[in-house]
């Protein structure tokens, strides 16, 4: 079963979440501060990080940014606020998903499963679109021959979009296909992830070639 690195400064919340996650079958590594989280992550590679945003010292946004520098581990942010600024800030820092406190264990479980599933392999041959090579089997993306490092969410989004080139996906559809959210998912997740993905694969993000916006409808892959 997957290992979760839980970063939460409140002892009761940390204990409660640890207990619930263990009961759900996850291995749990708990950290009290951002500094401890970064240290623990280096020592024991976790499959997913559940990160509280309000931490003493190094805050959750900074922890997320530092994690992203060296790793593509899925990050789910845990916010007590549900404030738009927090969520947008977390997504910009590279988080894959978010949950608002107090979170029901089954909801957290579903989100963790969804981010982990994104790394699942589909077993089809490599495809090339312009300068972009997508290998669905080994989950490798290359741009002009160079490996591109994508987080599982970014990769999954690219795989979903490129599986049906030219087909327009609405944000709602993508939330269901990539994030496995219910119908009231937050479309900002999609927009933030598209921005990050474009920054990695597009030559010019202001004139995207691969991930194109269809105003009023959503996104599509190509035509290249």
């Amino acid at each position, binding site marked *: 079963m997957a290992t979760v690195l839980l970063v939460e400064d*409140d002892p*009761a*919340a940390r*204990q*409660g*979440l640890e*207990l*619930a996650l263990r*009961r759900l079958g996850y291995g749990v590594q708990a950290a009290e501060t951002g500094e401890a989280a970064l240290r623990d992550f280096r020592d024991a590679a976790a499959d997913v990080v559940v990160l509280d945003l309000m931490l003493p010292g190094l805050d959750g946004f900074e922890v997320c940014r530092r994690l992203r520098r060296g790793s593509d581990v899925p990050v789910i942010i845990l916010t*007590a*606020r*549900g404030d*738009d600024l927090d969520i947008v800030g977390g997504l910009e820092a590279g988080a894959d998903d978010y949950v608002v*406190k*107090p*979170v*029901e*264990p*089954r909801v957290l479980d579903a989100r963790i499963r969804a981010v982990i599933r994104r790394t699942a392999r589909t077993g089809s041959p490599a495809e090339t679109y312009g300068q972009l090579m997508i290998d669905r089997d080994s989950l490798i993306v290359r741009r002009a021959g160079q490996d591109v490092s994508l987080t599982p969410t970014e990769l999954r989004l690219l795989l979903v979009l490129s599986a049906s080139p030219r087909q327009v996906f609405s*944000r*709602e559809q993508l939330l269901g296909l990539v994030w496995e959210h*219910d*119908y*009231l998912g937050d*479309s900002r997740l999609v927009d933030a992830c598209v921005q990050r993905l474009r920054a990695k694969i597009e030559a010019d993000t202001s004139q995207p070639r691969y991930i194109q916006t269809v105003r*009023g409808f959503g996104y599509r892959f190509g035509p290249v």
Partner: protein
Amino acid sequence: MPVRTRLVIAFIVVALLSAIASSWFHTLIGSYHLSAWLDDVILGPRWLQSLVSTTPRSGHALLRFRPLGQPAPLADHHTALTFFGIEAGVLLAIIAAVALAVSRPVLLPVRRLARAAQRMSGGDLSVRIPPRGRDELAQLVTSFNGMACALEDKVGELEQMESRARQFAGDVSHELRTPLTALTAVVGILDEHPGLTGDAAQAARLVSQEVRHLNRLVEDLIEISRFDAGSAQLVTDETDVANAVGRCLRARGWSNVGTDVPAGLTARLDRRRFDVVLANLVGNALRHGGPPVTVKAGIQPDDRGDGQLAVEVRDHGHGLAPAAIPQVFDRFYKADTARARSEGSGLGLAIAWENTRLHGGHIHAGNHPAGGAVFTVKLPLSAVEQP
């Protein structure tokens, strides 16, 4: 110069001018041998004439009238009356001119004061009038400024108190989330624990049920404090109404709710907020009204003749008490005080109302002629997103 002095001077000037004018007039037409009574009419009684009369300057009069070549004086009543009219006209013109000249500087500050008072009653408490001079009107302006200052301070203080109270409600709710996170995480363990039997199992169920209730209450309080703080934002998408209604009911397991929504009906809505509005209205109807509950949607013309989305949630119970109708959207309002605390937070309808308002629409509560309560939500077909 004080207003009183100005007025006194104005009166003196007017009196002097009229005296001079009548004296001049007397001299001018004196040569026409007016009858004594007309003399009295034009010039006033003898005693007044003696006060203001001067030596007749017939030379002056001759100078004016001789060139016309009319040597004979006219004692004709008509001519006399014409002169009388001219005299009155000249006097009126002089008085009016002086009055205008004097009243202008007096009325100007009064007008500015009136304008300022108007702006103030329109809600702009920052309005002040630059004081000019040191007369009574300047004093009035100073008093007005003082009053505006005091009023602004007081209102500012009240607003601050209110915003502190609202901020407090929001802060408390946020603070409650952390302990609730721990509770919510573990309460499920109690729920499913096979070791608990009898009283312990019942207690565990109660704890778990109330933790859920507390969660809903805190969530609703935070939602409403966002409206109070003005930080609630609309995120709209083109929405298929039938789809949204169906999903809202399915997600909550309300399969017994009847729907009548035409296929292909779309509107630009904030989906989450629309879902909240509908869920709160249907939940309220299921809890407090009688079955069957139905949801009907369609397009209706609004005041300007444009189309608007109308969603009607109706139950078949006893309906709302007429006295309760104006209050149903109040926070924590309970129509039936004897009823035990319901599973809602008491904020559901208030939240529905705020969400509708954010879309630029409104909700109407009433009773159906055939029985049962009807809540009608009217929303513009394309809600405008605030920046």
